[in-house]
């Protein structure tokens, strides 16, 4: 009886176990083939150039150079296989761009963000910004156009009337190529001391300290955040 059971088991096993099971490991080898036969939906960033070279060339130089076409236009494999078959859509409404550019405090600092409720409400983004080369329509005059968070913080602090350029010397090119031309930052304790040293001649309301003994070997901004310098 035992022998019968064992033979039956072997027989069943030889029929039921897929023949390619165990070829590479403890699994069905053809499962890999099935998985890689899955349909591709996103064509990839290289194929668009073949037909849309003008737009790709324009995009290459702008801020969106690393944003693949399919981020906004959606999966394009059907379109690249047969351009007549499927026309890709482009998001033209105001809701799409804020996915990336709405101001959210969790976003990395320096990433261009707006508060859509106050940034030209009701106007579609593309009426001012060409999405393939999305520079601001006019070069911004004020710093808070880009540095909104800092500007908001500073507006609540005693430094509210200190202009940005009093501490940061800003080359004009910074407004066009912000990453390549960086504003300066103060480097010495004496810089803060110009206003806050007890020897300085600034108005009395400004808090003053002995710059030689106060905080000794630390730089001022290691304890006081200059955009919100109140001791907390």
């Amino acid at each position: 009886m035992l022998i019968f059971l064992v033979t039956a088991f072997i027989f069943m096993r030889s029929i039921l176990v897929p023949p390619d099971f165990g070829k590479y490991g403890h699994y069905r080898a053809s499962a890999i083939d099935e998985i890689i036969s899955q349909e591709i939906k996103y064509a990839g960033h290289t194929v668009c150039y073949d037909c849309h070279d003008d737009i790709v060339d324009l995009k290459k130089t702008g801020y969106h150079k690393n944003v693949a076409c399919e981020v906004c236009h959606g999966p394009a494999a059907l379109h690249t296989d047969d351009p007549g078959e499927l026309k890709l859509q482009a998001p033209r409404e105001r809701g799409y761009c804020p996915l990336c550019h709405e101001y959210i405090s969790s976003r990395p600092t320096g990433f261009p963000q707006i508060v859509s409720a106050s940034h030209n409400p009701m106007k579609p983004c593309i009426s001012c910004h060409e999405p393939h080369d999305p520079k601001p329509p006019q070069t911004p005059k004020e710093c808070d156009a880009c540095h909104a968070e800092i500007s908001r913080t500073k507006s609540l602090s005693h430094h509210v009337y200190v202009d940005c350029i009093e501490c940061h010397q800003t080359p004009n090119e910074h407004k066009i190529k912000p990453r390549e031309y960086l504003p300066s930052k103060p480097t010495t304790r004496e810089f803060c001391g110009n206003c806050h040293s007890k020897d300085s001649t600034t108005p009395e309301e400004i808090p003053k300290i002995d710059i030689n003994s106060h905080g000794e070997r630390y730089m001022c901004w290691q304890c006081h955040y200059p955009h919100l310098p109140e001791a907390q």
Partner: protein
Amino acid sequence: MEEIVNHLVSLTKEISGYIYPNEIELHWGLLVVIYPYITGLVAGAFILASLVKVFNVKELQPTYRMSLLTALAFLFVAPLPLLAHLGHPEKSYEIFLTPNTSSAMAMFGFVYAWYLMAVLLLEIWFDYRRDLIVWTSNEKGIRKWLHKIISLFSKDISERALKFDKKSVQMVTIIGIPSAFLLHGYVGFIFGSIKANPWWSSVLMPIVFLFSAIVSGIALILLIYMVITPLRSKEIDMKCLDKLASYLFYIMIIDFSLEILDFIHRTYEAEESIKILAELVSGRLFVSLVVIQLLMGMIIPLGSIAAVKFFQVPNELRKSIYFVSAILVQIGIFSTRWNVVIGGQLFSKSFRGLTAYKMTFFGFEGLLMSLGLLLLPILILFILFKILPPWDEARSN
């Protein structure tokens, strides 16, 4: 599909804190609670039976065959909840064909088959063989043939053959004890080996499972014995009952100590997960863990059996105390399984939030199915009692 999504949507309201988005669906439901509960009863009943044969506990003789048949009846049902909970039960044969040797679950089929074939059936067969042969000689019709088939047409009741039977039972029992430990310890290992889940991951898990299994098995036999004896208009053997109760008591003390040890160890080590587990125990598991499992299922029965041991208690009162204690123990062990299986899935593996479990009534994984699976072994047991009467007076002397 829509049904699943609707079910999940209704769960989103119950979430507190943050859980990974895939964690809303609780994957092991009521059926997987029932599975370790039933295998626990099997292992427990068998170990009780082996007390008679291996350790020669004479007082328990009236429950010996009953325990074996109970173990068998529940063992038949044990794989059903597992099967029903699978996404694809029709593919379950793959577990036997291509078992992944590193998977605890893959071993289920083999442990189960070993236990059923090599241990339980063999022991029952050897133990009943002589009686079966004697019965067939006095019987007619289907019953005769049924017993003939079960006895596998053996006829030898010579002194030597009977001696061999006895020795075989002894041997199978000795193999059987580690097998029963294996069967249920292995179920504990399925949970205890999941390092991703701090509620499960513990070396104590197989041992705790084992001792709670023995507790539930003894309590079950005690219940069955107390229900069935009056039904047969027979006198309950108080010596047997007292012995059962005191075994129940001692094993429960071990079980209780192990669980307390686990608790102390966890709170003392206070690892990363302690905050969320504390929240779980004091919140969503409070009733099922503290009230039902610990208080109702452990402390009250322990206290009442201890009281019976210390004070002279009249037979009738003693019986009812044992009976109620055994029922409480069953409820307690069931909720132990619940707290392990469901409890282990109520907190997020991000340790930042809790989800909820909502039972469905109908369907493969619903309440109805589970009740059916819990009643089925009782039905099977009833049939087994009819075919293979375990009573002493049915023995042919």
